[in-house]
């Protein structure tokens, strides 16, 4: 287990999540893509911490990333609920009012 190997796995997770976030229509599936991207970020940050500078500061940074995931999920669920109530849909294509 080397830094390069862990970073390759983290990059694969990030890119699979990126594909999902860009290609999915259902809002909750888009959120799943974002979660997968953050999953890769957490793994990469953990690897950097262990292989480069294992000071406690790095663990605090990981806690912040996990808190960001929580905020993203909570707001995503709230927006999905609002969209479903107001438009009866959970698709991103039905929420393009601000596009252009």
């Amino acid at each position, binding site marked *: 287990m080397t830094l390069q190997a862990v970073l390759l796995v983290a990059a694969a997770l990030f890119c699979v999540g990126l594909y*999902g976030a860009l290609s999915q229509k259902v809002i909750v599936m888009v959120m799943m893509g974002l*979660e*997968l991207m953050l999953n890769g970020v957490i793994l990469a940050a953990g690897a950097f911490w262990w292989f480069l500078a294992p000071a406690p500061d790095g663990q605090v940074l990981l806690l912040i990333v996990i808190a960001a995931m929580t905020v993203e999920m909570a707001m995503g669920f709230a927006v999905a609920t609002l969209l479903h109530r107001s438009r009866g849909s959970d698709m991103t*294509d039905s929420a393009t009012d601000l596009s252009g």
Partner: protein
Amino acid sequence: MIDILFWALAVVSVASGVAVFVVDSMARATYALAVSFIAVGIMLVMVGLEYIGIITILMMVMEMAIMAVYMVMFMGMNPALMPMDMTHNKRWSAVLAMGTFVLLAAGALLIPWPARVGAPAVDLVASLGEAIMGPKMLAMLTISPVLFATIIAGLVIVNPRGRYDRWGDDLKHRPPNDPLRGGLGQ
């Protein structure tokens, strides 16, 4: 032995991540994402991050359970029984994802990473606790109001009685006719 376990977990985490966007059933997709998070959590434990790894596993398993409920609640049908395409712009999404992977992988393999500086503390969980309660307290003090603001924002967004005490977000909607007075503007 460590290497075999790491690569096994790596394959599981990436394969279950791919499965999220391949399987038909929404419930299976959330379970696949939970498996990916569990594999990453175990990998974090393997690099000495016991606390972070365990809370990642616990938090994500609960979050995926909630997500499965949301999926069933909002979808209104089961895609496993009624196959339909829920994607758009697949080709360019794949091109962008592959390009990003090539870029990140090249960076991971080609950058001459420096040697490790310092050694991990004997008790990593205790050192994290001391950092949070000491020099890194500002980070936690910042996260706390952000999480509180998230709770408030979430409640405001999902409240069916929207702005100016009307039903919904449209200002043309009628105000609610409450049997008891005392609401906003009444």
